[in-house]
């Protein structure tokens, strides 16, 4: 199972997966360089430059960590998933469909209170077939829910993947949208509905 997962991770991370070479520069040296560069930066900027443990491991091994660290990432990130208070994991696909085209949020300077933060899914994925401006860094999700049995297990698995991609696949290229606080649990539930609901344009 682990090997199969790992193979698919390498495939998913495909083109980035250079062989993990020994670092010519130590992590400590690298941190010191970054710290010196932003010594007087704002709290917001400083918040962005320091890595958490998962980011550090994935960077060091260029997204292909050795087995024991692979397992450690998986375990840590699986413990790092929260669900909506309502426990409803299938939200409103219409809300998500708008947010899939919305790139606002969490950039430096994105400080308008109350403005909706979007997942900007189309930057990397194909979704509804009538939207031509989609990226290809992630797989096409067009028809994602069409040929699947929509049960609680699939709904939860889809939620977990969007909330914390690395709880499914360590060092995945996909952002940990929920775990990093980029999207709320309720938003993630809306995105689940966008992918799985038979009424969603994704499954036209």
């Amino acid at each position, binding site marked *: 199972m682990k090997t199969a997962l790992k193979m698919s991770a390498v495939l998913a991370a495909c*083109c980035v997966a250079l062989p993990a070479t020994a670092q010519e520069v130590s992590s400590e040296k690298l941190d010191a360089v970054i710290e010196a560069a932003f010594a007087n930066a704002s709290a917001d900027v400083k918040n962005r430059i320091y890595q958490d443990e998962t980011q550090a491991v994935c*960077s060091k091994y260029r997204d292909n960590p050795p087995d024991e660290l692979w397992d450690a990432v998986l375990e840590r990130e699986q413990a790092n998933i929260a669900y909506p208070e309502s426990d409803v994991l299938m939200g409103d696909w219409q809300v998500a469909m708008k947010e899939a085209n919305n790139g606002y949020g969490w*950039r*430096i300077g994105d400080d308008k209170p109350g403005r909706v933060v979007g997942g900007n899914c*189309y930057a990397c994925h194909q979704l509804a077939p009538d939207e031509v401006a989609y990226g290809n*860094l992630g797989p096409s999700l067009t028809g994602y829910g069409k040929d699947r049995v929509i049960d609680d297990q699939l709904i939860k698995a889809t939620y977990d993947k969007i909330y914390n991609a690395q709880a499914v696949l360590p060092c995945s*290229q996909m952002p940990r949208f929920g775990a990093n606080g980029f999207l709320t649990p309720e938003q993630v539930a809306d995105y689940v509905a966008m992918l799985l609901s038979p009424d969603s344009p994704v499954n036209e």
Partner: protein
Amino acid sequence: MLQPTYRFRISTWLTASAFVIAGTNAALSESALDKYHEMLSDPFSNPAWFAVDRGEELWNTGLQDCDLGLGPGVVEGAYAQMPRYFEDAGRVMDADTRIAWCRETLQGIPFAQSAGQAFSDKGKFSEMQDLTAFVAAQSEDMPIQIPMDHAKEKEAVAIGEELFYRRASYLDYSCATCHGNTGSRIRLQELSQMTDPEQAGAVMASWPTYRVSHETVRTTRTSWCRDGILADVSGQPRDCPDDAAPHVGLSLANASSRYRVWI
């Protein structure tokens, strides 16, 4: 093999997204974009030359003795050989950093002040950007040849390479997330693959560039420290304000990857 040369270019990538947002279909966007690129390919239509003229005036009022690596006052060809190690400063510097250093040593303008004015804004020129544009224009059509002899230059490359894979911030991105693959796109915007020496070289040879969407010239700083170090893919240029080492390392890593190919 063809020796790539430095050239002023006009960058339109954000404009490409604008076409898409306008709701045109893919085929239309492409043909409209082709026409647009053709229009901008005329070097005399490049608004960056205004920045070059302003930069020349600034250069000639106090910086004439600045040593850009080829001796005091030699500007021609200097940009094509940076970043490089500077003995007098004891560190590796790119063009922007060196110009700021010269402003401090020759004109008494504090380094931090130059760093703080690294970017122009709407209706406000940046002397630093104008100076870099001027210096770069004196290497037009010249091959990029970074010296790469000094241990500090080699160390800077190694730092830059690690930074390329360093994941951080709210989206867990590194430079490699988007620029480590072949044939990748964000929306309809094609992405350069910076792990390919030829593509990295072409990118390095195209900065500084006139960004149509920013209505101004931008130098490599706009991208490296904003997207690369902060992993913050935003519209606002950011610098590494206190020490340019990460930025210099990334530039050198990218530029030298071509150096290894072309030597």
